[in-house]
């Protein structure tokens, strides 16, 4: 047995592989993406990027029903997309095990909300495991398969950003093969007609009762004895912070948080004069423990917002640490579109138009920030087209502003196509720009149905978005190169003046994926400091003593600035 430093994501990949997992499906989403990127490097496991999370969960369910141990991973909001099959999968149950990883993002490092997906366990009636470090991420991934098979139910393995992206020490073991079980048609189990679903619901409630008993007796929870009168109940990474702040307290460290091991909690709480529940985001454990009639302190002191940290726990519940003063007058450093980013050419044109722009989820969401300020909305995957349609229907003829909806290529395949069909069907007038950078950019360059390559590296059909939108009923389709700002300017004017619906496919690979050209340079004698080129928001360009300078270490030579300069000062 060897020891390695692994992220929680890598540890889950190691764990499911050791458990004999044979099929894995996911849609990329921070902080879950690296699980499948790690798993695909192992032998004897089929891995795919599915078109979206709902598809991924259905693929996983199919595989587990066919008899193979299956893994499905997604970020927390991905589970919203997959909620429909999630609820059904609990009724149907499993054949071989099915493990669903939900990677939550408290603090919203790279997300639009900080929902707490432990609740899905309660509402969908699915057991939930919450590891506290990478070793547990691996151990719980294996345990999840066992629970899933023993209790005929999928299992949610819920991690958070600090588990997913922290490296901690993990013991590496060998794979234990889990041969594919026999598949036989089972109408009463796998066909959710009401007549079948009624007995399946009853069976699910019984399964949950048995799971409660399992969690009381054999669940992955432990009591760490310390001070007699002072106890802390915690799960996930919050346990680590709490352990640091209260080294002398007694701990009930919960690993399986749904269904709650009520007997274990009562036993631990007995005789405690002071009992804290320390958990991130929502009062998930706290409310259930209070419902048992046990007095605890939790979210009345701890914040509901943002991620926890040792200091937040200390200042909320213990003697506050010394006052700290972050330095004043430090300019912020928000994330920005990269030098040469193809999205820049589109934003440059949009930011000068009187249009309403509904945005979507991807790198181009950064176009909402200055200097572009180019988006009115960012809601969820695929929402650009449908939110734009709603705005347009509400404004009607009275408002002359056109609605432009903007979506990335991966997001278009994920959930954008349905919205576009709706716009066509319901006589919408909006203009959709698909910013096709030939990859899933923000999550670190994953393939998707338009790239011609699978997660396992095999060549496949590359769906052409131009052909797809034509097939969806869009007659006015324009393909353009976002770097050609001069050519695109009159084209934009024309498209905006004509009735829609129309689609612009802006195609140019992500600047991080292509070889950089020689950097551009400003001739200081020609530059008059008009700052027009700075409107691109290129991180390689700045104004020094009233002249524009280009940082040659950052510039990739995209030449969009050259297109803009009327004095030909950039060469």
């Amino acid at each position, binding site marked *: 047995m060897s020891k390695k430093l692994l992220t929680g994501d890598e540890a889950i990949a190691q764990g499911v592989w050791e458990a004999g997992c044979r099929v894995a499906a996911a849609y990329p989403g921070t902080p879950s993406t690296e699980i499948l990127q790690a798993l695909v490097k192992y032998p004897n496991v089929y891995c795919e990027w599915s078109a979206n999370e709902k598809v991924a969960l259905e693929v996983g369910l199919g595989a587990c029903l066919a008899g193979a141990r299956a893994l499905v991973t997604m970020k927390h909001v991905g589970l919203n997309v997959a909620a429909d099959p999630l609820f059904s999968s609990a009724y149907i149950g499993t054949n071989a095990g099915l493990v669903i990883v939900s990677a939550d993002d408290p603090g919203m490092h*790279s997300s639009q909300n900080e929902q707490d997906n432990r609740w899905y366990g309660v509402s969908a009636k699915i057991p939930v495991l919450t590891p506290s470090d990478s070793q547990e991420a691996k151990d719980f991934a294996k345990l999840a398969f066992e629970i899933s098979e023993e209790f005929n139910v999928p299992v949610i393995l819920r991690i958070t950003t600090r588990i997913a992206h*922290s490296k901690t*020490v993990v013991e590496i073991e060998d794979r234990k093969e889990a041969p594919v079980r026999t598949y036989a048609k089972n109408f009463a189990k796998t066909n959710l007609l009401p007549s079948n679903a009624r007995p399946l619901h009853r069976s699910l409630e019984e399964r949950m009762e048995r799971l409660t008993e399992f969690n009381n007796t054999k669940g992955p929870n432990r009591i760490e004895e310390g001070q007699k009168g002072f106890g802390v109940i915690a799960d996930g990474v919050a346990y680590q912070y709490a352990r*640091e702040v209260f080294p002398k307290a007694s701990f009930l460290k919960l690993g399986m948080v749904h269904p709650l091991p009520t007997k274990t909690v009562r036993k631990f709480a007995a005789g405690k004069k002071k009992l804290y529940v320390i958990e991130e985001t929502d009062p998930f454990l706290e409310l259930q423990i209070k419902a048992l009639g046990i007095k605890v302190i939790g979210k009345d002191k701890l914040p509901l917002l943002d991620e926890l*940290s040792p200091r937040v726990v200390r200042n909320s519940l213990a003697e506050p640490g010394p006052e*700290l003063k972050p*330095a004043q007058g430090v300019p912020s*450093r928000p*994330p920005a579109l990269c030098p040469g980013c193809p999205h820049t050419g589109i934003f440059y044109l949009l930011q000068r138009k009187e249009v309403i722009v509904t945005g979507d989820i991807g790198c181009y969401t950064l176009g909402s920030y200055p200097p572009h300020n180019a988006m009115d909305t960012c809601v969820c995957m695929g929402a650009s087209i449908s939110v734009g349609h709603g705005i347009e229907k509400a404004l009607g003829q009275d408002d002359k502003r056109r609605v432009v909806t903007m979506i990335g290529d991966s997001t278009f395949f994920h959930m954008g196509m349905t919205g576009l069909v709706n716009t066509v069907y319901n006589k919408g007038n909006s203009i959709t720009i698909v910013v096709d950078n030939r990859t899933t950019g923000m999550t670190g360059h994953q393939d998707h149905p338009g790239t011609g390559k699978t997660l396992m590296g095999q060549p496949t059909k590359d769906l052409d978005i131009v052909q797809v939108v034509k097939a969806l009923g869009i007659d006015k389709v324009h393909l353009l190169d976002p770097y050609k700002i001069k050519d695109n300017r009159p084209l934009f004017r024309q498209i905006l003046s004509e009735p829609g619906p129309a689609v612009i496919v802006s195609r140019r690979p992500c600047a991080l994926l292509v070889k950089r050209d020689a950097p551009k340079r400003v001739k200081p004698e020609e530059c008059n400091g008009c700052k027009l080129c700075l409107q691109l928001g290129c991180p390689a360009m700045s104004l020094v003593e009233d002249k524009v300078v280009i940082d040659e270490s950052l510039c990739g030579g995209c030449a969009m600035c050259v297109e803009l300069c009327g004095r030909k000062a950039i060469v």
Partner: protein
Amino acid sequence: MKNSANILICGVGGQGVLLFSDVLSASALAAVLDVKKSEVHGMAQRGGSVTSHVRFAPKVYSPLIEEGTADFLVAFEQLEALRYLYYLSPKGRVLIDPLKVKPMPVLMGTAEYPTDVIDRVRAGAARVYVVEAHKTAKELGETRAQNIVMLGALSRLLSIPENVFQDVIRQSVKAKLVDLNLKAFQTGRKLLK
């Protein structure tokens, strides 16, 4: 020197903060210590401010360093040192690259890049080492080796043996880059007298 440390590494997305902390934490593990490291991937990395927390000790719980308790702050860029200075313990030391990378508000002219960064860092730390890692890496022919130059400098202040770092570097970078990175590491060690 003691066998535990809280090390906060900060820089700008793309500077190689993550490889630095990977090599550092793997080296600490090879020296048989409990190690945790934490950082955030995704949106923040697109040219934004990036941090990585590395902690090693006989036993580590939290993967995050508590503010005010870092033994070392390693900054790949001046302004980032100032931004995270409050993580430093009163006895904490700073390794700072004097490199300046202007953030977007400065590029756009809506904010000024402060001129007194290093003085302010000195005022808030027990000791400051100015390490010209970017410049040194450029002289070695590869600015991207800035991180390993910096690691060489930091290694002089840690109890982890030199050869442990070298072994981990050999395992962590592409074969054709091993020599360059080992050289960067050695040059970095010499930068700290």
